């Protein structure tokens, strides 16, 4: 297992290098001179020239890219924000807890709703309940979440006055944004749970479990769900990425000081180091989430687990580390 983890972490490195290259490439070819961005329009030609030297902007593209990566790896330096003159990493880290909390809350919300409704739908296939749930799930994935956020504000903040329309300080503030972001992933998790459960429920071992007199509740929640979990975990892992992406717009709707709002503001201000840093930062978080998903597979599915262990045993035998008994 440790060996597997180590290999998986090593595999993240080329991907993240690739992301950093793509991000750097895009901002390099974005029109506009970073020196002018930092100094403002009033800067003299000499100041701009000095800034060019200071930022090493006159170096060839590849040299600049290598410097960018080197600064990130050795110093954790993602560059400096044009507007606040603060290190990009600091700006991101200050706001990350809010984004993480938002994404975490909506994952929890969507998993609870998605799995429960999905199971109910699967066990009562083609019932009215199933049809209604399926219809709602279709609507759920079809709504732009920034629009859904505005609708929730109109209804629950403006008309009913129950919940605050902006901010993220108290649990009351969390409800609307978490629901906004969680809806579409809840719908997807529900659909995946439904189809995965439908497949499992037809298996022989479920009939065996029922035949031995096991209560229906345990048959469904223990025997069936456990075997239906793999595709569900995949969707949950994927939706975490979508949640982080969706947070970009939702945070600006609800004025939440998270990474998403920071990036939207950065795009509007043409603050490229911050945009670059933000995309790279989210890509790193995504890779870690994918890693966790892969480990969860092994945890949930003994077949995958033994794959790792037998592999390593085989390797040990080949290396002569495990002798005959």
């Amino acid at each position: 297992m440790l060996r597997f983890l180590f290999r998986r972490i090593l595999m993240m490195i080329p991907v993240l290098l690739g992301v950093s290259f793509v991000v750097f490439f895009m901002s390099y070819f974005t029109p506009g001179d970073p020196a002018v961005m930092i100094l403002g329009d009033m800067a003299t030609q000499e100041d701009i020239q000095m800034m060019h030297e200071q930022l090493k902007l006159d170096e060839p593209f590849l040299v600049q890219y290598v410097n960018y990566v080197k600064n990130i790896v050795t110093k954790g330096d993602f560059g400096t924000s044009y507007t606040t003159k603060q290190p990009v990493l600091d700006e991101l880290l200050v706001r990350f807890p809010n984004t993480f909390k938002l994404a975490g809350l909506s994952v929890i919300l969507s998993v609870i709703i998605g799995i429960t409704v999905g199971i109910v739908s699967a066990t009562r296939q083609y019932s009215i309940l199933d049809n209604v749930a399926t219809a709602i799930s279709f609507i759920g994935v079809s709504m732009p979440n920034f629009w859904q956020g505005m609708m929730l504000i109109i209804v629950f903040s403006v008309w009913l006055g129950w919940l605050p329309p902006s901010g993220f300080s108290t649990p009351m503030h969390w409800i609307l944004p978490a629901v906004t972001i969680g809806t579409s992933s809840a719908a997807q998790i529900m659909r995946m749970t439904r189809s995965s459960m439908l497949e499992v429920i037809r298996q022989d071992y479920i009939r065996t479990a029922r035949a031995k007199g096991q209560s229906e509740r345990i048959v469904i929640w223990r025997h069936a769900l456990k075997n239906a979990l793999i595709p569900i975990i995949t969707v949950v892992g994927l939706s975490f990425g979508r949640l982080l992406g969706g947070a970009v717009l939702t945070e600006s709707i609800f004025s939440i000081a998270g990474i998403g709002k920071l990036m939207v503001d950065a795009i509007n201000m043409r603050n490229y180091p911050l945009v670059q840093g933000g995309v790279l930062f989210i890509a790193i978080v995504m890779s870690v989430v994918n890693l966790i998903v892969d480990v969860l597979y092994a945890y949930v599915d003994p077949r995958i687990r033994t794959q790792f262990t037998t592999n390593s045993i085989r390797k040990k035998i080949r290396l002569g580390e495990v002798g005959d008994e």
Partner: protein
Amino acid sequence: MSEKTVAIKSRNSGMMRDALVRLFRNKAAILGLIIIVVLILSAIFADIVSPFSYDEQDLRQRFLAPSAEHFFGTDEYGRDIFSRIIYGSRTSLLVGAISVTISSGIGTILGAISGYYGNRVDNIIMRLIDVMLAIPNILLAISIAATLGPGIVNVMIAVGISSVPGYARLVRASVMSLRDQEFIEAARSIGANDARIILRHILPNCMAPIIVQATMSIAIAILSAAALSFLGLGVQPPMAEWGSMLSNGRAYIRDYWWVVTFPGVAIMSTVFAFNLFGDGLRDALDPRLKQ
């Protein structure tokens, strides 16, 4: 030779007919199709259908509530929201169609090359796809659009490129499953070159999943494009686009609910229709999935 083609043709048309029959039995898919057709018609005949022009301002008639004259009310410039939504369907459908053409085109080529040649080529292309998948779809589209600058063409490119990975993986998997089959070997043995084998023999056999994916991704493309316009990276005023209508109306949601409600309903119904139709299409083209 000619007999064989006839036989294959009739078998194909039989499969197509079966699929169509299954599709038309699916009420949800038909509902989706009807909405799509209505949308396309209203986009084409926007000049005739809409009661006002999309940029006709009347500052004395700002923020009128929905009424018989203005079905969906008027916006901050006194423009008729219903008409703007109808004109906006042109933009959204166009963006959806063109960006999906871009993504399915590039994705199919990459996936086919990757799956057919395997080995090193496959490795390089798939690592590239991994890099793109490491960035959340919408964020990738935002970064590309921010690089290219605002504008409708750039939105199409940004949305198109950001959804290439899905196609590439899908096509790669289907090509890999077909690559070693006998009819490919037969084609190779009569001297067909790689390009011909891929284009004439392999791709036609994996069209079904590509078509389904394309229908579904029109829905996603429309959502992404609306999000980009909402961020100010999309079409520029006074052109009507649903996402930018939401963005403009956002400042007034406290007092005038209709300004943001109806453009959002338009986006939702369109995306909903494509999702329903795509889902039905998948069930029809691949009966194994139907439970």
